[in-house]
């Protein structure tokens, strides 16, 4: 059964987390691709009483947290996960991933979680709210996936109260796990998440290169002049061993210190903006093999971190 609009919620048992701090946590999660899926933006709905709190809106799923629960809503069909059970595994993996992320953030505070999950199907055409149908695709998926995660028959599954009371609400099941929920153990039993990647920095000049490319050129050992076009104070804090030529001194450098025009030159700055200006000037001055490190020093350090992780 194809059922890709699913929502999973995990109720908080203790004090609500600091939702103001959560906004920053979510933005950093986007920056570092710390959660699964293509992450887009943060929506602050704290002003709505009984509302969704703060959402991390994604392309195919939204992560959320309010005073009552952590939640994940899968909106689109993700990859090959078309069947209801596969989609539920994915949704739960994202939910436990969200918990893992928040639990590691000091600003959020300790998270006390209830021993109960709620799973809803958000597709009134394929999955109308007729909870008595024990053979429904939603029920079957909940039963089989919870069996895999918590042990056969360990979870008590019953129609969720709100959905049972109101036929207009999306069909939902409450799943109680008497022994409590161990997200780390559950994650081990779920299929692994696809590799996460920080999106590429957007093009900054016509002559951008990636951090991997620059690394490769350096490893190849071919002649290369590396220019750092930031200011001296920035250079002192961190650098890649390039030659310090602040952007505004590039003109003078071209007149006095420039190598032959056929030399390969790579420039970088902090995030690629000044580098893009520098490479434009170099090309205009006749350097046909001049390149800008897209994303600058930030992209270089990010790439380093990713390689170390791998």
């Amino acid at each position: 059964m194809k059922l890709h609009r699913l929502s999973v919620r995990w109720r908080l048992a203790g004090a609500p987390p600091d939702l103001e701090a959560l906004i920053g946590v979510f933005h950093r999660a986007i920056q570092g691709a710390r959660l699964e899926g293509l992450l887009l933006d943060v929506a602050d709905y704290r002003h709505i009483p009984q509302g969704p709190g703060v959402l991390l809106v994604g392309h195919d799923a939204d992560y959320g947290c309010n005073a009552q629960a952590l939640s994940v809503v899968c909106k689109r069909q993700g990859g090959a996960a078309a069947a209801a059970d596969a989609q539920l595994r994915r949704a739960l993996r994202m939910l436990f991933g969200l918990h893992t992320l928040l639990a590691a953030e000091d600003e959020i505070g300790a998270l006390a979680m209830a021993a109960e999950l709620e799973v809803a199907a958000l597709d009134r055409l394929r999955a109308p709210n007729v909870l008595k149908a024990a053979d429904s695709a939603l029920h079957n998926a909940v039963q089989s996936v919870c069996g895999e995660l918590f042990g056969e028959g360990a979870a008590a599954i019953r129609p969720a109260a709100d959905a049972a009371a109101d036929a207009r609400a999306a069909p939902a099941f409450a799943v109680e796990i008497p022994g409590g929920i161990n997200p780390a153990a559950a994650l081990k039993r779920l299929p692994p998440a696809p590799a996460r990647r920080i999106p590429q920095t957007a093009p900054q000049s016509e002559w951008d290169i990636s951090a991997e490319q620059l690394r490769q050129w350096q490893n190849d050992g071919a002649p290369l002049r590396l220019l750092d076009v930031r200011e001296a104070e920035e250079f002192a804090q961190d650098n890649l061993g390039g030659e310090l030529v602040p952007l505004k001194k590039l003109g003078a450098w071209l007149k006095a210190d420039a190598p032959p025009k056929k030399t390969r030159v790579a420039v970088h700055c902090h995030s690629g903006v000044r580098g893009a200006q520098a490479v434009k000037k170099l090309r205009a001055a006749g350097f046909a093999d001049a390149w800008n490190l897209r994303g600058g020093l930030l992209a270089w350090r990010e790439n380093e971190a990713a390689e170390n992780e791998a």
Partner: protein
Amino acid sequence: MAAANQSARWKDALAAQIPQAWADEIDQFEAQLELRRQGKLEEKAFAETRLRRGVYGQRYDNGQRHDGGATRALPFNQAPTKGPETVWDAPGMQRIKIPAGGLTPQQLEVLADCAEEYSDEILHVTTRQDFQLHYVHIEDTPDLMRRLAACGITTREACGNSVRNVTACPLAGVCKSEAFDVAPYAHALMQFLLGHPDVQDFGRKFKPAFSGCEHEACGLVQLHDAGFVARVRDGRRGFKVVVGGGLGAVPHQAQVLSEFTPVEEFLLEVQAVARVFARLGEKKNRNRARIKFLVAALGIDEFRRKVEAEKAAIPPDPRRDELCKNPPPLAEEKAQNAQTNFEKNSKSLSQNESDFEQWRATNAREQRQQGLFVCTVHLPLGDITSAQARALADAARRFAAGNMRTSVEQNILLRNIRATDLPALHSALHAAGLALPGAGTLVDVTACPGTDTCKLGISSSRGLAAELRTRLAAHAAAHNQNTAGLRIKISGCFNSCGQHHIADLGFYGNSRNIDGRRVPHFQVVLGGQAVDNAAQYGMAMGSVPSRAAPEVVMALVGAYETTRQNGEAFQAWIARLGKRDLRRLIQPFMKVPGYESAPQFYTDWSDAREYTIGDLGTGECAGEVVSLFGIEVMRAESQVFDAQVALEESDFEGAEDRAYRAMLSAARALVRMEYIDVGESAAEIVPEWKARFFDNERFFDKFARGKFGQYLLDRYAAPLPAGERAAAARRVEEAQLFIEAAHACEARVAASGETQAAAAATP
């Protein structure tokens, strides 16, 4: 059973419930989606098609987003596109027209389902009585439209160059001061013009509005392209018809086309206006294409002559006459339960006496009909969740005979509530988190979507609004009878979707460059007036950093409270103080502290990212001192301030002159970045600025293009005769916008490093 569900389609499931014409339109739209996906339909043609069905773009749909550190290419599939620089896969916004704001419980339930399944469970009420869903995927839009069509809602002509939602006073039919109920006429206008051949060829959008009386604020007809005010003359119903109003970047007050048009002829009048606008309105330059520019160019008398001539040429139309004679009422549902069931319980149902009393004082209002009340469900920032919407539908059935209206204040009104049911209604709303008091007061802040989801947003209007709500809820000013009634309205940019021009305290988003970093700001707009259908627009007083905007509100409200004389109203107090003294109140908040001591000033409300205005992060270019541009442009800002003072003192000639000089100073500030020796006269400045910044489009921004630059060129080419208030006010407004555009231009130049060395550029 599972197999049958598997292949189920909304198209089949709802076939019997959708009018055939609407079903065909949606099928056609779905076919166009498929053609575009296969690359068989041109990008621009498809964009116009989807806009006409309310399928709108949203922030980051060009596939790029600044994450606080760098601009990232969001890895959407790059093909196909759904418009220029708009990625197919990027989520967008769906606008849903609600004519006159009339809504049944069943419709609200379907909207709730759609928000839950296709969006983020939030229904957002707009400042034009529409709903908007955000983060919607384009593949889901045909089914979304079918589900709405099955309950009588069409999204046709919700965006694009078409007749937009027809708005009306949400109290129509129950209001004490109305001449008659205008809602059926609004509904008739909508039915008559929807898809009408005479409204398909506009150069720009066209927004109509109805009001039941002259003096309240509800209809806001003065700021609409066409407005209709109910009048009764010799026992006959008719409308005062006004045209050419509009907010936008430069607000225009509508002008009177007809003092009295009998209802039998009002659709003919509208049709004639539409045909004149379609024929003579600007088509190429969208910045001059609203009907307000046509009315201003022709003059209202000539425009009226053309409309009269057009009327004579329009063929007879029995459908039109029938709609005028028997305007269709808005859809209503019958209440499911007799209201009397609750009467005997009402005392015990009121859970908290003081909460109830507070809510009743601000949210319940007596109707014209004896013993009945209209109650406002106060939605914070216009937002309601799917679960809340279902609870509200229940309450509407139980207590309001199934009758709801959205309002331009972004709330929902329930009507025909018996006095004895008020406590039970309050309890029902309270249980769903919908019993917020303070409707129509200081805490009921209006805001457009701004940087949350809008592509044009500059500052976080919703973030500021939420912060103000929180601070004001606990503040004495919100409960003090002198100040509780003041209204705050916020737009995320100069485009006025938050209607900041008609607020007591208005704000619109802009930004400033401080020591090489961008800082989100809000322009403070004071002196606007919503009553008399928005008869007076406010004036820009100066820009304050976003983070200081709440302090500005507190300072202004506090000063009003302590220095008002003889119970004078806020408007009168603003007028008495004058721009100079008001500026003095705002001045202390205009300064931006250094990045090291107050980094929060360099982020916006509800956003943890370091603030940026574009795809190119200008935030990294630290260490610059105040630029030459910064010093020069301050002159322009003080001149525009002087122009406002002159305007206030009814020195219209002086105001126009100073506004012109302000534009010249801003233009000169730009020129001096490249050519330091430029002279002081207009003849020296304008050609230099035009050659260096306008002709090569460096002054242009992506959306307004050369709009603001044209203000200076127009004034330079043909100075208008001075001495008239409306023209002078417009000049002042234009000068303000020109300065904003100069700031933006400077930021783009700084970010792209385009500035040519002074020596090289000197002729």
